[in-house]
């Protein structure tokens, strides 16, 4: 399983590197979304850092959805799907691999956006650093949930393209936990109480994915 996971992760990341979508498109998008959220909330509200964790995770959610859509698109074409299907890759491994690749992408984007949060939304630096471990865990969980729900959405071509968005409710606990933990870190609150939720969610989504990805990807 691990071998398959590494193979798939390497492939996804290579495609990603090749098309440079992450660097030139996802990251600027995130930065822009952060700026715009700040603006949309109005200068007065965006200025103080209370809103920063919420906005950060909201933007990361959109980044996740977009990146999942891309990660699906890589194997989406009908012809490609058949070719790959007959390789008979272990589905658990494919799930893990895709999750790893997505996690790496989210971490890169997240790190840059955290910096943006500090500079643009005036979140305090020490708190942000304290929260970063937890943010990393939450993003990994988001990635796992994203890949799982990407599979739910079917082939990814044509009519069902937007289905993963329906599974947004599954992201909600992650977002709330992440936001609370980050807020706690900024205000020196109980970081770890919320942090464990993210960790538990990560483990749960990974387990679910390894077990169920094959069933979802079957058809």
């Amino acid at each position, binding site marked *: 399983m691990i071998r398959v996971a590494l193979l798939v992760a390497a492939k996804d990341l*290579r495609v990603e590197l090749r098309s440079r979508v992450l660097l030139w498109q996802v990251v600027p998008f995130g930065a822009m979304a952060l700026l715009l959220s700040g603006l949309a909330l109005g200068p007065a509200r965006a200025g103080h850092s209370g809103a920063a964790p919420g906005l950060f995770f909201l933007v990361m959610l959109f980044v996740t959805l977009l990146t999942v859509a891309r990660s699906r698109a890589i194997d989406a074409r009908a012809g*490609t799907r058949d*070719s790959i299907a007959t390789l008979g890759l272990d589905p658990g491994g494919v799930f893990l691999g895709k999750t790893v690749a997505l996690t790496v992408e989210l971490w890169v984007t997240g790190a840059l956006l955290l910096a943006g949060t500090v500079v643009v939304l005036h979140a305090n630096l020490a708190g942000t650093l304290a929260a970063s471990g937890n943010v990393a865990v939450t993003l990994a969980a988001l990635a796992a949930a994203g890949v799982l729900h990407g599979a739910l959405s079917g082939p990814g071509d044509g009519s069902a393209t937007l289905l993963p968005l329906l599974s947004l409710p599954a992201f909600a606990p992650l977002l709330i936990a992440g936001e609370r933990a980050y807020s706690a870190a900024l205000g020196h609150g109980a970081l770890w109480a919320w942090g464990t939720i993210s960790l538990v969610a990560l483990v749960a989504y990974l387990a679910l994915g390894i077990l169920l990805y094959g069933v979802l990807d079957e058809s």
Partner: protein
Amino acid sequence: MSEFVASLNDALVVRSGFPLLSGVTLEVAPATLTLLTGPNGAGKTTLLQLLGGLVGLSGGSGQVCGVDLARDDRRALRRRVGWLGHDSSFYDDLSVRENLTFAAKALGRPLEDLAPALERVGLRDRSEVLARRLSAGQRRRLGLAWLLMRRPELWLLDEPYAALDEDGRRFLDGLFADVVAAGASIVVSAHDHLGATLGAVNTVHLVGGRVESRS
């Protein structure tokens, strides 16, 4: 256990209420070449997909490579067939070589097989080109190289001659002869006549989702 590589009995494939295959009975013996013919929309592609575990059985029964289509996991089957779809495609953003490397690693084959496979299908001087830039025939050749990396018991090819030039067709004829000689079975759909170099061919003529005649 039957002595056939694949056998279907009154197999039915239904999708969104429409019967793509309306009862197909068929046997594929080891070391044979079976040719599927029939008018457009007869169900050739669907039959190949069924044999490859790419669509499920909706009625009737069947077994392929020892896998019971009605009962077992289709995934187990997919690993054992070689598949060349009508519009086989690969990772568009990876080069020819990278695509083959991926397949080789996924199948646990040594990477040394790669250069000869490229050479045989005539893609050596395109090995660094991204798959999306290949011409139609070159894509088909990439599919063949992908197939050469495996040694399946059952080869399923959907109109493999389309888009290939003279040279490619000759290669394919040769390949078929080799495969059958080595004891594996081939099921292939085609509208053209197969090359004359091939020996005995079982022809199955499909019409309207069922077998109309065979020879």
